């Protein structure tokens, strides 16, 4: 479980007074709340998790931000290194064949100790040691012939590993991670064909994508970027592809067209930045004024809805070959 909380705490204190005066009239003329309010982006602001495995960084931890490493396993005072070392040796001899070298369970059916309720609830061997000594024979756990001291050393070792678990239940680091090159399973030739048919009206491997494979030596990053439509394509797609901004044309009921970079739009206002870096804003009321948005990522947004994984991998293989 993981909800989408963790928004940005907007600086609203001063604004509220303004709101009190203009609540019914419209947006305050004073500086608006900062961009990227708690709901600016689709549901991805999760707050800064500690020890999060993979994934993009979350939004800054706002109200009641989440902390990851604060469960008892992480809070436990470090044990005596000598005891832990002895426990590790004893674990290797007596436990590893069933519970695995990484404590996550083994071929002979021993359960994962890192998520074991016994291990998690154990404070100082009081739950673990009796099991080592045979209290769970009816569940298939044979007694291990260890002294109390040795059994406690094993418990200390287990706790020392549990203390290195990551946030959100992630195991300790150390398991091999697939190399980024493992992304390259597609056919570059098929990718070239797809590119010629679907991408070449906007892109060229001798033009804007010249040397793209060299610019993105990490194929996973390459794939994320081309699918999302450029450097800013990560989480949510941002507003721009390949550095091209989203622009807007506003045609007031009376007056001439105004064009510029889109700063913000909602049902009630559209704000743009003109070529001279000054801003203009327009109150919106339904279709008035007329607003036309030009999103350079529009084609990519359409692509997302039809792109299948094979074509995606093929194009990635093709682009990776463009050095």
């Amino acid at each position, binding site marked *: *479980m993981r909800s989408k909380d*963790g928004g940005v705490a907007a600086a609203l204190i001063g604004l509220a007074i303004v709101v009190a005066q203009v*609540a019914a009239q419209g947006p305050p003329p004073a500086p608006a709340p900062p961009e990227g309010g708690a709901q600016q982006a689709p549901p991805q602001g999760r707050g800064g998790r500690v020890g999060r495995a993979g994934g993009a960084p979350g939004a800054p931890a706002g109200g009641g931000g989440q902390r990851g490493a*604060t469960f008892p396993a992480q809070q436990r005072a470090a044990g005596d290194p000598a005891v832990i070392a002895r426990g590790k040796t004893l674990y290797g001899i007596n436990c590893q064949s069933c519970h695995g070298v990484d404590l996550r369970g083994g071929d002979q059916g021993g359960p994962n100790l890192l998520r074991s309720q016994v291990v998690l609830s154990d404070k100082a061997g009081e739950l673990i040691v009796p099991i080592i000594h045979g209290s769970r024979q009816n569940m298939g756990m044979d007694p291990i012939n260890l002294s109390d001291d040795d059994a406690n050393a094993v418990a200390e070792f287990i706790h020392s590993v549990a203390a290195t678990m990551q946030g959100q239940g992630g195991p300790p680091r150390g398991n091999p991670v697939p190399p980024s090159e493992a992304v390259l399973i597609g056919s570059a030739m098929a990718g070239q064909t797809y590119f010629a048919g679907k991408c070449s009206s906007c892109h060229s491997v001798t033009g804007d994508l010249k040397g793209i494979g060299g610019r993105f030596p990490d194929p996973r990053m390459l794939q994320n970027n081309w699918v999302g439509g450029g450097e800013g394509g990560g989480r949510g797609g941002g507003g721009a592809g390949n550095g091209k901004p989203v622009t807007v044309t506003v045609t007031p009921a009376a007056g001439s067209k105004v064009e510029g970079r889109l700063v913000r739009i*909602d049902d009630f206002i559209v704000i743009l930045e003109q070529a001279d870096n000054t801003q203009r804003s327009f109150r919106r009321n339904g279709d008035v004024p007329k607003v036309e948005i030009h999103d350079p990522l529009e084609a990519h947004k359409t692509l997302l809805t039809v792109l299948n994984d094979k074509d995606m991998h093929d194009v990635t293989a093709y682009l990776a070959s463009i050095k």
Partner: protein
Amino acid sequence: MTLLRNSGGFAPANPPTRSLAGPRDPHSVRATRSLPLARFINAALCAWQPIKKLLLTTSLLLAPVVLTGQGQGGLDPADIYKPLKDSWPTYSGDYTGRRYSALTQVNQTTVKNLVLAWVSRLSGPPAAAGAGGFGGFGGFGRGGGAAPTIIGGEGTGDFGGAGTPSIKGAILMVDGVLYLSAPDHVWAVDARDGHELWHYFWKTRGGTHIGSRGVGLWHNYLFVETPDDYLVSLDARTGKERWHKEIADFSQQYFSTWPPIIIDNHVLVGTGNDLDEPGFLQSYDPETGNLQWKFYTVPMNPGDPGVNTWPSLDAARHGGAQVWVPGSFDPATRLYIFGTGNPTPGYTGVGRKGDNLFTCSLVAVNVDTGKMAWYFQTSPHDTHDWDSTQTPILVDGVVNGKPGKLVLQATRNGYYFTLDRLTGENIVSTKFGSTMNWSLGTRPNGSPDPNPEKEATVPGSLVSPQEGGVTNWPPPAYSPDTGLFYINEHNSFNILYLMDTDPRGSMGLAGKQASGVGSAGNFLTAIDYKTGKIVWRHPYSGGGGGGLLTTAGHLIFSGDGSGNFVAFDASTGKPLWYSRIGGISNAPETYTLDGHQYVLVAVNDALYAFTLN
């Protein structure tokens, strides 16, 4: 499956417990002992059932006597049975989950005159608790005198409580007082001007401080869960603590966000966990804090229902299905109907092949016994962290020409369902997300059929929606005037990479990398519950957020994701009014005070109350 009926309807009642026909459900545990012991004494308690029932019945009969000694101003639990109108006495307003208020003062004609009545910034962690200080608010919100701060808790308080609190849950309004919470905080606030009456701060032991969805009120007893897994009971009049009880094992990495739900003499309590531990719903006695029953949402013992949908009992017992968003309650059947969370490990299903019951399911349990009456799985074998905990809505409607007792749910995976709430039988299954690509369709029983190719893969799979889902905890709403189910819909894509190819699977939510590659449009969406068809969509330029409220004034209230608080026409989705107050962090509510209807919403640590000019 046991099915319970009586002739209640949605009327105030204090019904007696009734005996259950049929075999004991081994899934349910009754215990008054400490929780870790509960399942071990399951068998022994079986023999106790008749006695326990007698005790429970007795306590029910005694309850009114006990509470007369508590003075005025409390909330009679019978009042929560009434249709939602002047007050807001429980998480969803009433037990139906509709978030539909009968108030009409603010309506399509008058809403243009809706203005800010007051704004109040809540106090943060007290300096004495070792946390950062808090700023004033220009004279607003404090009522001219410092409200008493009551400090509780068993930790040092320096883990999660520091920092600006954020309101991400329900606010109760009873007798002119607002009761609300954030992780480690509870406040009582005067609903007339927003000044604090008292502030309770909990010194935490740590844990995941992601949110607090609100409080429950039983007469003058207030209940809240803390992130470090205590149920705390306060005197609602003073904020002074009555007792606190541990409701889940903190060392097993449970954390608690759920707003306690009061039903008669039950305090329903859910919890959360990201580390492969079993989910459960529990019921506590409001007076003593003793456990009444505990219902596990995954099989815990050999032979338990659903165990054959897991490769092993060990996998089931680490299978998740956390209960962290409240459900809805049907007084006629005494069924509490709620959604369960994702299976664990979340993204690596290799070690838990099968449908993984009762994860990602709508589950109905008898509120007096904790026994399951039916279930319907809304996302079999989820591998995307798409909980199905979303608020179900109870509607008495007509489908296919026949009157039906229905339950409606739109789940995080992007599917909408209409079920028979007496049996759990599926009536409608449709997609309400616009771009979902992870299912192969629906099975004959109405459950979606997941496409295994859309799990995380080493070369990457392009998946819609992203992990946050098409919807999440922010609640939907339903209006009997329009017959429409309303939901904020989020569409998005990410590429899911498998980063842990261990044949045992990973743990928790680890083992994947999710790279967002684009938003695909966000909407306020209206669904016809009879067909599941989309009636209209109103596009948001932002995300939509916080959740929804609808009223007999023919309005819908929501944040628009662009910093506006907006009132929409309930028939068309046309915006009728707005105020730019920032990113809305909870679902709007409404109540009446001194003859004036208020609309209340939070932006992180600030409360905004609107009323007609």
